[in-house]
C-alpha cells in the first residue's frame, strides 16, 4: 500500500455497510462509509449517539464483521476473514481503550497488562523493562500492584492505555476514553494519547462526543446517520 512519500493507509474503508437485524426489523448502522487513516495519524471521530461511530469502531477492531464493503485494517480485509482471524487481529494489530476502562477487576494492574501480553503470545517477565518509557509516561509505575477498585478513574484509564500499548499494536482504538473522567484526568489522558502519537508514532482512532477532546487529534472526521459527514 506504500507509494513513495504517500503515507501507508493502515485503515482503508470503502462503501462499508452494517445492518443489524432484530426479528423482522433491520437497522442500517453504517451506510457506505469511506475512510482512509494513514499510519501514525491521530484521528478523532466525532458524532452524535446513533451516528454509527461505535459500529465503525467495532468493525475496525474486528469485534464484528461488516455486512458489506471493504475493510482493510493492517493489511487484513476484516470483512472476508473468519472469526478466528479477527480474533488474531485483536491479538496482534489493534488494541482498545474503552470509556469504562474495562480492566479485569480481580487482577492487579500488573496482571491486567500481563494478561494482554499472554494473550498476544509475548514474554511476560521483561515487560516492565520494555515498557519503561510508556509506564513512566503514564505515571503508573507505583500503581502496578493495585487492583482496579483501589485506583481512581484516571489511574484505571492509564492502566488500560498501558495494557493496550503493551502488545505494540499497530492501531489504538479509543472509544470515549475520557467519558468517565473529570476535566483534569480527561486532559491528562488526552495529553498522553497525543504524546504517545507524537513520541512513539502510535496510530490512534479516537471516538468522542466532545469537540474539545476531538481537537487533540490531527484530523477530525464527523459522522452522521451512518455516514461520514465531513
Amino acid at each position: 500500500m506504500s507509494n513513495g512519500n504517500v503515507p501507508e493507509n493502515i485503515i482503508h474503508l470503502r462503501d462499508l455497510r452494517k445492518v443489524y437485524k432484530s426479528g423482522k426489523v433491520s437497522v442500517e448502522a453504517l451506510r457506505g462509509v469511506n475512510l482512509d487513516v494513514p499510519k501514525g495519524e491521530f484521528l478523532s471521530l466525532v458524532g452524535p449517539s446513533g451516528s454509527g461511530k461505535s459500529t465503525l469502531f467495532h468493525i475496525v477492531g474486528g469485534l464484528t464483521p461488516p455486512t458489506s464493503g471493504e475493510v482493510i485494517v493492517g493489511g487484513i480485509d476484516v470483512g472476508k476473514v473468519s472469526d478466528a482471524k479477527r480474533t488474531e487481529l485483536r491479538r496482534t494489530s489493534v488494541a482498545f481503550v474503552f470509556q469504562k476502562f474495562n480492566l479485569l477487576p480481580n487482577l492487579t494492574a500488573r496482571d491486567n497488562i500481563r494478561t494482554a501480553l499472554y494473550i498476544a503470545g509475548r514474554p511476560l517477565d521483561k515487560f516492565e523493562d520494555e515498557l519503561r518509557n510508556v509506564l513512566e509516561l503514564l505515571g503508573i509505575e507505583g500503581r502496578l500492584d493495585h487492583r482496579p477498585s483501589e485506583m481512581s478513574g484516571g489511574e484505571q484509564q492509564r492502566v488500560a492505555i498501558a495494557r493496550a500499548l503493551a502488545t505494540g499494536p499497530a492501531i489504538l482504538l479509543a472509544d470515549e476514553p475520557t467519558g468517565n473522567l473529570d476535566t483534569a484526568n480527561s486532559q491528562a489522558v488526552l495529553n498522553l494519547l497525543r504524546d504517545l502519537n507524537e513520541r512513539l508514532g502510535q496510530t490512534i482512532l479516537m471516538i468522542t462526543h466532545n469537540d474539545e477532546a476531538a481537537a487533540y487529534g490531527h484530523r477530525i472526521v464527523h459522522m452522521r446517520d451512518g455516514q461520514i459527514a465531513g
Partner: protein
Amino acid sequence: MILRLVWENVRFRPMRTLLSLMLIGMSVNIILTLVGITQGFVADMRRRSAGTGADVMVRPTGSSFGTGTNNTIPPTYVGYFGKQPHVVVSTGIMQVAAGRVFDMISGIDQAAFERMSGGLDFQEGHGFVKPRDAIVDTDYAAQLHLHVGSQLKLQNQMWTVCGIVGTGKLGHIFVRLEDLRDVTGATGLGQIYLKVDRPENVDSVVAALKATPQLADYPIFSMKEWLDLTSVDNISGVSIFLDVIIGFGVCTCILVVLMSMYLAVLQRTREIGILKSLGATKRLVMTLVLGESIVAGIGGTIAGILLSFLARQVLKTFVPASLPVAIVIGWWPKAGAIAIASALVGALYPGWKAVRQDPIEALAHE
C-alpha cells in the same frame, strides 16, 4: 498465566467458590462414606468371623457366600460333627434379625462358643443365668447406652442385658440358643462351627466332610476360605449398590458444577468480553472455564475427604455397631477422578456459552 487467571477468578468470589466446593464435597463425601460403610461392614464381618476361633464352617443347604443364612441345619449334626476325627469343638448357632437394620441376634451355646473362641471378654456382668438374658458387645452397648440390667427389645420380646463383652466375636448380640428357638419357633441352626485340633488338619477335615454323601448339599468352608471370600465383590448387590451411589455422586457433581459455572459465566460476562477484546481465543476462554472447574473438583475432593472423616466420627459416635465405617484411602483418588471428571463435564455447557458470547454484547453488560 492461565493458572494465575483461574486462581484469581476462584479467589475473587470466595463465597461462590466455597459453596461450590462444599456442594461437590458433599457428593464426594457421600461416595466415600458409603464406600467406607460397605468396606467397614465387610471388614467388621471378617473380623467377627475370625473372632469365632473356628476352623471350619458348615452352612445350610441352598445357601452360599453372599446370601443370608436360613436356620435349617438339624441340631443333631452338631453332635455328629463333634465326633469326627480332629474336631475338638462343634457348636451350632442360630442367627435372626434383631429388628434394627443390619443387627443380628446370635443364639449360642455359651460354653461351647467360649471353648471355641477362647472365651468372651466380659467388660461388665456375666454370662447367661436365666431365660431371656442377653449379652451385647461394647459397640452395641455404646450405641444403645446399655448396661447390665438394661432391658432390650429384640424379636418383640424383652430381654435383660446380663453381660457386656469386648467386640469382635461373631456378633453384637448373643442370647441362649434355646431362648432364640423358643422365640422364633425355628428348630434348625444357621451355621455350625468346628474347631480342629491342629491347623494342618483343617483341610483334611473339610475334605472328609465334603466327601460324606449325607453332607453333599451343605456348603462347607474352611474359615480361611470363608475369610478370603468375605469381600465387597462377593456379596450380592453390593457392587451394584456402589455403582448406583457413584452414579448419583457423578450426577450431583455435574449439576453442581454446571450451575456454579453457569452463574460464574453470567457474572463474568463483561470480563469474558474484555478477554475477547484482547484477542483471547475460544480455546483460551474454554480453558479458563474448565480450569476453574478442575480447581472446584480438586477442592471439592479435599472437602469431601475431610467431610468423610466427620461423617465417620458421627456414625462412630451414634451407631458404632450397626454401621462400622472404614476410611478407604484407596478410594480417594477414585473419588477425586470422579469429582474432577464430573466437574469438567458440568463446565462444558457454561464454557460453550462463554465461548459463544458476543464480545460487543459482553462488553456492554453491566
